[in-house]
């Protein structure tokens, strides 16, 4: 064909330029910053090389925040995925008003995290909070201060995260369930398979790619959780909910140690990068399937 075609680079240029300025260069800049001991408001900037990283290695409160993030991720991701799968299984049954429930289950995910945090602070309040009022109704004490008990605070955040993240994962599972060929289910029913057997041997294995996708994307988000901690616990009580995203925020904006914060964010970046590469691999096989990667 002799039709003159325009150069696609011009079409992509604004987006690519934006990506360079606001993603690629900042990542490089953060790496550069992490080699300095830098406290801008104090006016101190000193090259320390890998010094910041060496300091972080022995900083037990930073590792405590990594540990907390890992606990939060390991607890909230599988529970969240299981809840979403349950909801998806339910809504793909013959159900009146399935569309209404789908909309409702999705709602928390689009909401303001600050508004949601305020809501859940109320739910977790001692005495007058929703949960404690319910406990009093059935004759229990109702004095539990969920967000101020070291052991309960983390569990409370995990529980809330399941409520928040239900919808998008559920939609992914619904799509996955609809892709399972109906003949497989029918064939196994003819063979006399019960529902539990069918779920374990057909549904769950065929949902494998969906589950992997759900787990990886929600782990990336869980490792970086910030707003609920800022609003609800401030990392407390006694550092019990100090997760790495919040820890870095405090290092940079409360203690004003920009160099250390940059080094810490690079360590978080490395963790997220590994998770992202897994996700990228999965997406690449899909892109090749569409013939245009």
């Amino acid at each position, binding site marked *: 064909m002799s039709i003159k075609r325009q150069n*696609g680079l011009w079409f992509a240029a604004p987006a*690519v330029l934006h990506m360079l300025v606001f993603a690629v260069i900042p990542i490089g800049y953060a790496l550069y*910053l992490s080699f300095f001991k830098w406290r801008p408001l104090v006016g101190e900037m000193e090259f320390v090389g890998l010094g910041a990283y060496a300091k972080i290695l022995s900083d037990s409160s930073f590792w405590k925040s990594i540990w907390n993030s890992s606990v939060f991720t390991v607890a909230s991701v599988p529970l969240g995925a299981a809840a979403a799968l349950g909801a998806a299984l339910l809504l793909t049954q013959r159900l009146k008003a399935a569309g209404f429930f789908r909309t409702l289950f999705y709602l928390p995910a689009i909401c303001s995290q600050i508004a949601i945090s305020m809501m859940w602070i*109320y739910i977790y309040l001692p005495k007058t909070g929703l949960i404690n009022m319910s406990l009093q109704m059935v004759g229990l004490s109702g004095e539990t201060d969920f967000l101020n008990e070291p052991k309960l605070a983390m569990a409370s955040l995990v529980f809330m995260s399941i409520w928040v993240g239900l919808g998008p994962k559920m939609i992914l599972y619904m799509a996955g369930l609809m892709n399972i060929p109906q003949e497989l289910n029918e064939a196994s029913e003819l063979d006399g398979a019960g529902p539990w057997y069918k779920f374990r041997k057909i549904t769950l294995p065929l949902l494998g790619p969906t589950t992997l996708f759900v787990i990886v994307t929600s782990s990336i988000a869980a490792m*970086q959780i910030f707003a609920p901690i*800022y609003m609800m616990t401030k990392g407390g009580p006694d550092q019990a909910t100090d997760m790495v995203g919040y820890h870095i925020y405090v290092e940079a904006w409360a203690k004003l140690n920009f160099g250390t914060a940059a080094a810490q964010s690079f360590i978080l970046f490395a963790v997220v990068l590994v998770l992202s590469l897994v996700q990228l691999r999965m997406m690449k096989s899909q892109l090749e399937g569409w013939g245009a*990667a």
Partner: protein
Amino acid sequence: MPRKESATKSAALHLTALLIGLFVAAPFVLMVLISLREPSTSLPQFSELIPEQAHWENYSQVLFMPEIPVLRFLFNSLLVTSVIVICQLFICSLAAYAFARMVFRGRNQLFLLVLMTMMFAGTVTQLPVFLMMRSVNWLDTYWALIIPGISSSFNIFLLRQFFLQIPKSMDEAARLDGASDWRICWSVVVPTSKAALATAGAFTFFAVWTDFFWPLLAVSSIRMRTLEVGLSIFKNSYGGTNWPLQMTAAVIVLLPLVIVFLAAQKFFVRGVTMGSVK
């Protein structure tokens, strides 16, 4: 062989759905109920949850509060969110068209870069971008709130996936009529992707409207705050004492989100699954 489902099984399913629905809806319902209580009263017991008298004037009181400019926050949020949504739809559509339809050197490498930035933006870029904004004196201006958000790798990816599914024969026909890529992009591909644009636009609206971390850093004077950051100030200045007004403010923040969500939600199912594995 479709079997007739037994009535008990169906009833159990509906009951389960209702129970989960109650669990999801309860916080929202409580929020509205508390927002209608008389300001600065103590929190209700179960039996008093439904206020004897609905204090709708709480809403006007919060909107026109003398010490906290809530209307200004609302204006800032509307301005920043709408400019970003429009810019993103324009910039990302162009890039998505290039990645889906055009051939150029470095296309695959650039697209890989798009995918990578889509997945690991976040904590690491915030401090450097803040310093960049400071060095061009954009802190505490709309520029700082808007410019870092005017393009998004996620939307480039999302729109590209939709564009790929539009049959090539459509643009070939236009091309034979002498249309340029620019024309094909804006009068063939984009108009056929209304669902995709609605999804991308709505996701962007939610993300920008509820963004907290960046506006918290980027602006410092109270008149530049967005609603989301304003809400956190509200909580701090009423620190757990005036729940009805706090909840009123929270409802005001949530309402635009719910409206956009209900208007655009039929497109979502496709939008959310688009970025996943098949």
